[in-house]
């Protein structure tokens, strides 16, 4: 007999997600489906607008990965118009994207993912002195005295004894799948709180360059933040913009602060927690196919060879062959609707490149509210993106593997160090914990890279180059009557691209294929499952069907961003997005 369990809402993610799973008597997941349940129709809202404004709308697809859609958007317009941007603008964008990575990954780990592994209530039983010893044994982080942990424990104790548990109420505390000793739990809780304070501080890089965070500002043709170093006071203000000498020094300080926290807290914590959950390096592997678009150019977006994160595809876990990827090739990236509530004019079995994308709604699912979906027919409002017909996983794991396969020195060294420490083979990366660890490793790599961009920016300014914006194609009257372009970015959650079509100075079509759609999309015509589906099918045994902690671990390891995944659905019909697993 199988039993169907429902998790709705899935919390500690961006957006609204529902998971249904069928488990057998032993608690093993046999079948699962995930469903996102909110839509806004941003694609329709964008039609007919000024392409230069599109970033602000697109950015509001998501407030967590708050800048990625903005960047993808300005890049798509720049690609369409063949609009080059000054090198300083490129460097500032790199710094902003990198800052977003470090910020987002740390917040994901501590505030969205950690409670899957850390039992807050168990922390009350910890000995602060032993906790201090543990902390000092794994890192040189200064906040590690017995008194520090005693204070944290006292605070948590007060809180629990007050009877009002607030956000910690009703969770799966005491679940048998929690394996950390009380001391490790207490250390993690202390760092949960520390990370809240830290993130507030480091988010300020985006504020200096973008004016605010969340939702910093961008600009087609460069960046909006004029550099005001050494500007005469006459008729103006010295250091009139946020990017003045103080601002630039502040950016340097924050980069150092980021590096320190990653090195002293995030990295050691990940390894420490992972060492107690080594079985999770055997659970939750995905499709085995990985895709990156590449990002962080040292010169320009046209020079793919200069990207720090390389572009490519890996199939069947074979790191020896990297396949070439072309975003404009109509045969490579295609979206399928075989199991989605859409029709294509050429038939449901067809795949379409985003430029030719169609959004013909055809809801054939049961009438809400319903109990179950018919997973043999259509069951999702998400399309299934495929690369040359393959279901691809995108995100930190894909990037770490791509860097590794390309022989990136630091990646090889870091991955080797981590795997060695945990006494695991490289294959262990293809798992739930591998995904979480890859996120930590790439955070370190990117944090370490930031200072070199910063130094280059400062060198340019010293040499008198303060250009941040190219005025040449700003006026819409200078544009061709028709153009189209693709803008892409390696977002923290994976490869993201926006395809824009411009006609007579206005947007006539706008399509985005986002990381969470790549990862969470339903099966295609061939019946190939998407990465969430494949991962949940892999070796998930639930210790307690009423507390399906194991599902949350694997789903959270992808860092779902559901508002992103269903931002664009044309909403003339009902809104359900269902991803069927297995």
């Amino acid at each position: 007999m199988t039993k169907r369990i429902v998790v709705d809402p899935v919390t500690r993610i961006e957006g609204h997600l529902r998971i249904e799973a069928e488990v057998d008597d032993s608690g093993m997941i046999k079948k699962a489906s995930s469903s996102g349940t909110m839509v806004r129709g941003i694609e329709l809202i964008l039609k007919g607008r000024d392409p230069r404004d599109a970033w602000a709308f697109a950015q509001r697809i998501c407030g967590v990965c708050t800048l990625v859609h903005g960047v993808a958007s300005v890049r798509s317009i720049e690609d369409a118009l063949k609009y080059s941007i000054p090198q300083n603008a490129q460097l500032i964008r790199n710094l902003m994207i990198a800052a977003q990575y470090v910020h987002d990954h740390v917040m994901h780990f501590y505030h969205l993912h950690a409670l899957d592994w850390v039992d807050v209530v168990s922390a009350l039983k910890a000995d602060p002195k032993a906790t201090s010893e543990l902390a000092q044994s794994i890192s040189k982080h200064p906040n590690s005295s017995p008194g520090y942990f005693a204070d944290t424990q006292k605070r948590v104790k007060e809180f629990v004894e007050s009877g009002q548990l607030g956000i910690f109420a009703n969770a799966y505390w005491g679940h048998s799948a929690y394996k950390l000793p009380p001391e490790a739990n207490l250390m993690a809780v202390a760092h949960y709180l520390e990370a809240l304070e830290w993130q507030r501080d480091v988010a300020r890089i985006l504020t200096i360059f973008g004016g605010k965070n969340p939702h910093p500002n961008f600009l087609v043709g460069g960046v909006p933040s004029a550099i005001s170093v050494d500007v005469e006071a006459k008729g103006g203000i010295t250091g009139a913009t946020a990017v003045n000498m103080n601002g630039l020094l502040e950016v340097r300080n924050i980069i150092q602060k980021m590096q320190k926290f990653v090195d002293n807290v995030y990295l050691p914590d990940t390894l420490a927690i992972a060492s107690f959950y080594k079985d999770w390096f055997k659970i939750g592997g995905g499709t085995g196919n990985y895709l990156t678009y590449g990002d962080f150019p040292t010169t320009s977006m046209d020079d793919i060879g200069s990207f720090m994160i390389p572009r490519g595809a890996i199939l069947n876990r074979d790191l020896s062959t990297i396949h070439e990827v072309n975003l404009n090739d109509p045969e490579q990236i295609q979206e399928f609707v075989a199991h989605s509530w859409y029709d294509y004019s050429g038939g449901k079995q067809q795949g379409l490149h985003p430029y030719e994308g169609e959004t013909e709604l055809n809801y054939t699912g049961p009438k809400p509210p319903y109990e179950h979906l018919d997973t043999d027919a259509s069951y999702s409002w998400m399309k299934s993106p495929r690369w040359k017909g393959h279901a691809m996983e995108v995100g930190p794991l894909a990037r770490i593997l791509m860097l590794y396969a390309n022989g990136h020195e630091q990646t090889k060294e870091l991955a080797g160090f981590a795997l060695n420490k945990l006494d695991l083979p490289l294959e262990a990366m293809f798992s739930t914990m591998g995904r979480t660890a890859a996120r930590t490793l790439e955070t370190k790599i990117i944090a370490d890279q930031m200072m070199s961009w910063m130094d280059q920016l400062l060198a340019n300014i010293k040499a008198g180059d303060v250009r941040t914006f190219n005025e040449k194609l700003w006026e819409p009257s200078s544009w061709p009557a028709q153009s189209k372009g693709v803008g892409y970015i390696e977002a923290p959650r994976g490869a993201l691209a926006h395809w824009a079509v411009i006609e007579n100075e206005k947007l006539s079509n706008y399509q985005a294929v986002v990381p969470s759609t790549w990862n969470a999309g339903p099966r295609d015509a061939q019946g190939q499952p998407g990465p969430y589906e494949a991962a949940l099918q892999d070796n998930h045994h639930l210790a307690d069907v009423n507390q399906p902690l194991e599902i949350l671990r694997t789903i959270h390891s992808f860092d779902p961003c559901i508002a992103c995944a269903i931002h664009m659905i044309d909403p003339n019909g009902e809104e359900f997005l269902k991803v069927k697993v297995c």
Partner: protein
Amino acid sequence: MAENDNLGNLLARRGISRRTFLKFCTALASSMALSPSMVPAMAESLAKAKRQSVIWLSFQECTGCTESLTRSSQPSIESLIFDFISLDYHHTLQAASGFQAEEAREQAMAEHKGKYLLIVDGSIPVAENGVYSTIAGMTNLQMLEDAAKGAMAIVAVGTCAAYGGLPKARPNPTGAVSVTDLIDDKPIINIPGCPPIGEVITGVLAHFLTFGAIPELDTVGRPKAFYGETIHDRCYRRTFYDQGLFAETFDDEGARKGWCLYKLGCKGPVTYNSCATTKWNQETSFPIESGHGCIGCSQPDFWDMGGIYEAVSEPLTDLRGPAVTAVVAGAAAGVAVAAMNKQSKQSAKDRHFKVSSETLDEELKK
């Protein structure tokens, strides 16, 4: 023991002196533009306050408002969660998932009936009976109405919840509306912004906790303490507007010297918010200081208020087409009227036919 516990005792047990607390309240009052003379009374009443039950519902949103909340340093999210409020339901932050999460919400609603504070972010779609957004099988509409019944007051955080925001932008595909559009029997505080400044969100909450009442609001439901003046009024670049010094592009001399961004589309003159004074992320900067004009995100319908890079005084529609049509039509009408005038003049003339003596004779013979 939870019964007679209050914030003052909690702080005392944690070894936080009342001096420190007074300092905290001073900072709070300063950020809320409250009279400093109110601080001692405020500290006394806040010390006696119990942790307020808060239920936070997320509808058509992007989580930007929650992210912004976590950026607040005064008070910080940690102190808010641990000391001031009991955040009994919040999708993005809470540990529990699934039915346990829903249970927590229902429990809080029953236990604190009539006393909990309801916070909403995101707009509510009402087209097609609200199917465009559901949680745990309930539409947002049902969940809001349900939770509003027992709420003491409602706080609409972000422009989406306050005024409909991005989902409501033309052509509003999902029929998105604001909280005020749906609920009319509860006090509602709007904290608009896309997102609002973190300190403004927590500042308004702290005000509510301190005084147990909603602050003074403007005509569109915003606390006057934070939304009383336009960005333009308090902008450090205002003097350049008055002197007629404007940045013409994003990278010219004026842009680097901090001249006014009016011509580049800054919506500061028509936007009520405290970005220019409170600033963002621990007073680091705000959009204009970082070179980009204000996009007007705390105003109702700001997405349709004109292009981001169009000056406030520019028309929102193309006038050239209609103007040409009007001139052509006017010319045609002019010709037609003139022709008609001529005709009637002619016919009037014709009516004055000449009478000769012969015809007169003939007429008389009859």
